């Protein structure tokens, strides 16, 4: 295990008694269900989103098995439509969007700021229960008939098809409020609860990422909310806004939907980038390169992200001029993303790099997000997009960003903060093997789909031509490797919880506040009043004496 000279000896006696901590006191189920401690709420979110990840992942494995052969393999076409819809809805609304902000962010953000809690602890608990209610609506919709519209709920199909569209849309509407309240909480926390001495440019970059994400959550989610309400009313009352049969405009639904859902892509990826900005300097033992550039690139991604929604609609009948402008603005997003990637690489350059599991995930992120981002540029180019629209190329692209980017960063962050959250170290060797399996399995599954897409395999199809079978089978085998890696990861992480507390305060030799309190922390976070004296990435050798 890495043991670095910068580890703060003064706060890390060899053996300390950590039996009193936020997990153990107070005791009892009720004390958890009514807690307003951001750490406990973060942990409750963590188990919830991991449950959603498991469910969405099982649906994904079933889809891949179905696609092993052309024609029917294990399910009918109707079931297939429902399964890919549920996979999308669960992964987007129940897993990825809350994964990093609501689970890891809730736990880490106040600690990083040296605060005792988020600004509105009761609102925080309320947002968790809204999430639970939303999830229950979603599950009810699933077991009482399912939905076959795809996660985008495009009209007019969604206003005419049978099934539990209204219930599922209601679930997404409710989950949106959970997301809004978390965002409001984080913005107020960052503004008002930084430790003495911590100015805006002494905040860890994770906080900048959470802040940018929160801005998007607050500004974009209400528009999705009202859009989904309009969709429900269109289905039940025929209000005449989206359904062309009664004089509505189905393209308007797409505009409304993507006005939220494209920024939502950045709600998903910016927190991933935020985690990478923590892991890379820690495991390179080097000051982050271009702190302000990374901080402002998060904010600029958040702002430009609001102006690119039309690139989902190049073939939906919007004007050519609009398409050209949206295409140009889409290219602009690549600039702040590129700024980040090159700053991370420059941070690693001549650093003292060690390859523990979080760093392996961070390096995987750089490779996979690089591919995901670059293929986004292909798709943002009008002439190319017209050929690739609704093919597996698009599927591969957004999985490289959502899974190769966000989920890989989430796993990196989970491994990075696991000792802090639960006070235990996991088996490092198994973690490295798990990361390797995930990386290889992911690329087998999805790189294949770039090839399939460029050869014309359309997305969301149940059947396909025989010529695609070899590639589909390879992709399916890849999904098994990926699944094996994730189950292995779940196994050793859960196994670590059976051990006694063995994590030191600062196992990675990091420099941010959360590592200065005990692992796991006490309920009020710090047994001292945190005051900022050094920067979050100050890895210069400490002066002796």
């Amino acid at each position: 295990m890495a043991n670095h000279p910068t580890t703060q000896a003064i706060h890390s006696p060899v053996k300390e008694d950590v039996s009193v901590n936020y997990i153990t006191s107070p005791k009892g189920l009720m004390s958890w269900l009514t807690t307003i401690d951001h750490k406990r709420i973060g942990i409750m979110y963590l188990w919830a989103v991991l449950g959603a990840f498991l469910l969405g992942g099982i649906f994904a494995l079933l889809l891949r098995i179905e696609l092993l052969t052309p024609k029917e393999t294990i399910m009918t076409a109707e079931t297939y439509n429902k399964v890919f819809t549920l996979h999308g809805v669960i992964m987007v609304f129940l897993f990825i969007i809350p994964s990093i902000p609501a689970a890891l962010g809730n736990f880490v953000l106040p600690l990083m700021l040296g605060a005792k809690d988020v600004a509105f602890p009761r609102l925080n608990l309320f947002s968790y229960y809204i999430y639970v209610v939303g999830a229950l609506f979603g599950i009810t919709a699933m077991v009482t008939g399912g939905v076959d519209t795809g996660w985008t709920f495009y009209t007019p199909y969604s206003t005419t098809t049978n099934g539990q569209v209204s219930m599922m849309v209601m679930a997404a509407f409710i989950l949106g409020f959970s997301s809004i309240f978390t965002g409001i909480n984080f913005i107020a926390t960052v503004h008002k609860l930084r430790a003495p001495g911590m100015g805006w440019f002494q905040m860890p970059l994770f906080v900048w990422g959470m802040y940018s994400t929160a801005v998007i959550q607050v500004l974009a989610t209400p528009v999705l909310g009202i859009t989904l309400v309009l969709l429900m009313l269109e289905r039940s009352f025929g209000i005449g806004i989206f359904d062309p049969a009664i004089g509505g405009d189905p393209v308007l639904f797409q505009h409304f939907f993507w006005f939220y859902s494209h920024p939502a892509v950045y709600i998903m990826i910016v927190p991933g980038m935020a985690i990478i900005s923590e892991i890379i300097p820690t495991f390179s033992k080097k000051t982050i390169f271009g702190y302000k550039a990374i901080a402002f690139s998060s904010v600029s991604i958040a702002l430009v992200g609001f102006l690119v929604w039309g690139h989902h609609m190049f073939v939906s009948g919007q004007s050519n001029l609009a398409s050209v402008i949206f295409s140009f603005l889409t290219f602009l997003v690549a600039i702040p993303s590129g700024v980040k990637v090159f700053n991370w690489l420059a941070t690693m350059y001549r650093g003292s790099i060690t390859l523990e599991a979080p760093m392996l995930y961070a390096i995987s992120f750089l490779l996979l997000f690089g591919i995901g981002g670059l293929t986004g540029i292909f798709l943002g180019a009008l002439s190319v997009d017209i050929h690739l629209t609704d093919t597996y190329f698009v599927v591969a692209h957004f999985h490289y960003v959502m899974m190769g980017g966000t989920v890989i960063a989430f796993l990196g962050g989970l491994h990075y903060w696991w000792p802090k959250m639960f006070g235990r170290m996991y088996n490092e060797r198994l973690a490295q093997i798990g990361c390797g399996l995930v990386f290889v399995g992911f690329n087998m599954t999805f790189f294949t789909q770039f090839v399939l897409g460029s050869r014309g395999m359309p997305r969301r199809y149940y059947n396909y031509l025989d010529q695609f079978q070899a590639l589909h089978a390879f992709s399916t085998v890849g999904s098994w490797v990926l699944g094996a890696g994730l189950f292995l990861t779940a196994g050793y992480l859960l196994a670590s919880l059976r051990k006694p507390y063995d994590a030191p305060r600062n196992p990675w030799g990091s420099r941010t506040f959360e590592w200065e309190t005990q692992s796991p922390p006490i309920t009020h976070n710090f047994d001292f009043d945190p005051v900022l004296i050094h920067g979050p990435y100050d890895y210069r050798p400490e002066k002796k004496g």
Partner: protein
Amino acid sequence: MSDTAAVVHEEHSHEHHDSSLQHHFATYEQQMDAGKIGMWLFLATEILLFGGLFVGFALMQSKYPEAFVQAHHHLDKNLGFLNTVVLLVSSFTMVMAVHCAKTEQRKKVLVYLLITLACAAIFLCVKYFEYEHKIHEGLLPGKFYTHVGDTVPHQFVFFSFYFMMTGLHGLHIVGGMAAITWIFFRAKKGDFNHQYYTPIDLVGLYWHLVDLIWIYLFPLLYLIS
């Protein structure tokens, strides 16, 4: 010594904190500022929520301009104007309630809050009579629209938006009345003083936004030309 970021203290003392200052805030000012940031952000989400309806209304109006002009003649401008005045008065009394809370004039706080509540109730009564008239005439949203004798089609789209927008706004009025009732009882208990009046201030901000949205809804729906 090392450059650690720590000033070690004994166990945190809570006896300095009285109950209206939450444990994670150091000062009343910090708590008030955080609350205000939170409320302004919430108001921003409200504007965006209504914003979706405003944009939808504008697009549908440009699609069916004649239908919208015809349909709006069924609305009673005088009642709409009356409600606008009622809400403006309620905004004024709300401001006065906040001011009196800050200056610790407890009796006046209660009086102003009661007038605000009364205005909200008048608004809802007027709205009730307006709705009743529409329901009677069959001027209803979507497929429930049964009004006969129209010369221009697609008037049901106007009434879809009329009921969605005024209905959502009405729900906000009801929510505001609940919040005002809550701070009325807290004010009666004597919870507020010059240092701590955050809740009444925040409810005030919310109430002004609800009024402001009506100020936009009134010309949009009642005064189409």
